């Protein structure tokens, strides 16, 4: 018979195992195979329950994201643009490097995705593939006219209204990430122009919020292995294997883009860091960011790792903080590359000819729709492609139905692409901290507080 002490020991063991399972190596060798096998044996009814539990835990993991972004952006912008902390030349250098690297990365990522799509031709299907897709779409894409039609899911709001903040706290509580970012940037700029004595209480509060958010993220990330088991088992049990096979070219293309992005990010890391900086890290941090994002399906979970790694290399903390949070949340490079591939997939599917002009349109629309996915997670990002499909007059519902059918798998490489390319942007745009500036900054930077979090460092895992 089990005594209370035994059960405590058992629970302690479970909770001690979870952080260890969070390591990417354990994800590949234990969690992924177990989840696939588990998904194959469980009844379908249980799968939907598992999926709901997984989504609830994803929501929990995502909950510290908004306060983390809000505090990190405000503190870092206030520090970077404060005339007391650094010279105008240094501010200009960071701003220009960040904007240029962000723009170039978006363009290069789009181009990379486009080239891979042209090579892989994701929407050119075999007759069997077409039949599988046709069977899958039977009854699901019928158009009903005159009945109780649901309101359109595609928002007709002008895109700029999604960026302009209204009330930063209301935007934060509504999960309007883009508005929170733009509001935080504006607030950070305002703080940088005020007397430090006036802003110090707010900065202290923001630092506390930031530290607490990182700590919360660290705690809830312990649930990541359970989230993965629930989501992958649920997906394996319910996903239509026939569709995955039919859309294999598309799936491969998305994974290839993630791997190519990893390669690019590694090159950037090597090119834009010194030997001394690289000596501060045991393993290649880009690999760790890739694996962590891939294993959790969320690029935001790699933020503490990116931050700690670059800070440990002696990069300016505020610049790292600003570039990492902004590139992770604004650029959404995984979505940009995914949308480019998805647009080419749709054009292939409907025999739309690909001309040089159309390539440019695909790159532009892929980047635009990908960035518009900022603040959205998982399958919610997929419908952003509708704007591009509508521009090319390609049928939207069947393409979305197909993309959504395999999205549980493709969320992972999408997150990994966002993670590694955001890391590349941070590496390019952040500079070494100067001792003179550091002495001023370290006292006010949130990074000092973040560095106290021993748990954050452990996120690197493997």
């Amino acid at each position, binding site marked *: 018979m089990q005594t209370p002490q035994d059960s405590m020991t058992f629970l302690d063991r479970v909770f001690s195992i979870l952080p260890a399972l969070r390591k990417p190596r354990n994800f590949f060798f234990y969690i992924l195979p177990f989840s696939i096998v588990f998904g194959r044996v469980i009844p379908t009814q249980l799968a939907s329950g598992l999926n709901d539990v997984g989504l609830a835990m994803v929501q929990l993991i995502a909950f510290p994201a908004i306060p983390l972004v809000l505090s990190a952006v405000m503190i870092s912008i206030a520090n970077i643009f404060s005339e007391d902390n650094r010279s105008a030349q240094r501010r200009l250098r960071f701003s220009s490097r960040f904007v240029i690297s962000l723009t170039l990365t978006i363009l290069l990522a789009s181009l990379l995705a486009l080239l891979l799509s042209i090579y892989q031709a994701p929407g050119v299907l075999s007759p069997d593939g077409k*039949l599988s897709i046709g069977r899958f779409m039977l009854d699901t*894409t019928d*158009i009903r006219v005159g009945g109780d039609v649901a309101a*359109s899911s595609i928002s007709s709001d002008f895109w700029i209204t999604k960026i302009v903040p209204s009330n930063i706290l209301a935007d934060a509580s509504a999960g309007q990430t883009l508005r929170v970012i733009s509001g935080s940037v504006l607030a950070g700029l305002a703080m940088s122009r005020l007397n430090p004595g006036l802003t110090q209480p707010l900065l202290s509060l923001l630092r506390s919020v930031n530290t607490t958010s990182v700590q919360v993220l660290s705690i809830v990330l312990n649930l990541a292995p359970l989230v993965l088991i629930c989501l992958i088992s649920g997906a394996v049990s319910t996903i239509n294997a026939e569709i995955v096979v039919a859309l294999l070219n598309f799936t491969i293309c998305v994974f290839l883009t993630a791997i190519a992005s990893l390669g690019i990010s590694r090159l950037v890391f090597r090119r834009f860091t010194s030997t001394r900086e690289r000596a501060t890290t045991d393993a290649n941090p880009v690999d760790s960011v890739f694996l962590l994002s891939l294993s959790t399906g969320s690029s935001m979970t790699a933020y503490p790792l990116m931050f700690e790694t670059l800070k440990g290399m002696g990069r300016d903390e505020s610049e790292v903080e600003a570039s990492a949070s902004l590139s992770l949340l604004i650029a959404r490079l995984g979505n940009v590359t995914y949308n480019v591939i998805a647009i080419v997939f749709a054009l292939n599917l409907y025999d739309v000819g690909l001309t040089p002009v159309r390539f440019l349109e695909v790159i532009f629309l892929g980047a635009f729709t990908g960035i518009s996915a900022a603040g959205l997670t998982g399958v919610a990002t997929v419908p952003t492609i509708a704007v591009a499909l509508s521009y090319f007059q*390609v*049928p*939207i519902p*069947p393409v979305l139905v197909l993309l959504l059918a395999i999205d549980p798998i493709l969320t992972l490489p999408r997150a990994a692409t966002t993670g590694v390319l955001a890391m590349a942007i941070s590496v390019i745009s952040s500079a070494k901290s100067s001792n003179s500036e550091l002495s001023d900054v370290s006292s006010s930077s949130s990074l000092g507080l973040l560095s106290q979090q021993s748990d954050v460092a452990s996120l690197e895992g493997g």
Partner: protein
Amino acid sequence: MSPKWPKAFVRHLIAFTLTVALLQALPALAAENSFINSIQQRGYLKVGLPPYNTPPAYYIDKKTEKLQGYDVELARELAGKLGVDLQFDRESKSFNSLVKRVGADDFDLAIGKLGLTYNRLFDAFPVQYLSFRHALLADRKFISSLGVDPEDNGFGDALKTSNIRIGSIENSTWETEAKVNFPNCTFVGYKNWEDAQKALLTVDPKTKISAIDAIYRDATEIKPIVYKDPDLSLKYVPVLFDDIIDRKSIYLSEKGYIGFSDFLDVFIRREWGEVKSDERILNEYQAYYQPVS
């Protein structure tokens, strides 16, 4: 002085008169529904059926070479309830001529997924037994070119007022309905349903466009096209109109409507199982509509 009748004679006279009156009344009761009576006296129910094969409603079975289908079964059961045999007339040239002929008393009733139109009401009297939604099988590219999200409330109006090129069987209810429901459409009539389908699915290799943008019929004719060839779902989409219902009816002449519509109503409620929707028919005849394994 009036003659005195014996009481016994008067009593017998009254009894005789009443008996004669009753005997006269009995044959009158038996001939109350002259329409049904004439069918029963003839010994068979004469049913008009369109000259086409429209499985699973009515068609010649290739193996048995006999007429089969749910319309044929309905007619058989009706004849059974009347206690008579059944005879089909398939000599009509079109759906419209079939309705005209039943109105002219060429047969007792006309059946065969016959839709309801104003013109047909000029010729005969309908009794509804099916309720099928109107449907299009439309080219997805045409639907996209409308520039309205199909989930948007304005999609229906955009489609109905578009310059869509619609194909269907010529001289059928669908020609009339297309002109009423899609006022700006161009209707292209085909000899039969197969030709209409071919026109939609065949793309000109030079222009890369089809002769028509959609084909028009009820949901039970549209849905099976994609059920039988699922890869068509990529390029073509069934558009189902919940607000345009085709009240498929059995047609009767004026005399038949007076004498037979109540009988038909009771039969449809009790034996047929109320007026059936297209979804119910698609489910009941799933083996035919969805042969995909």
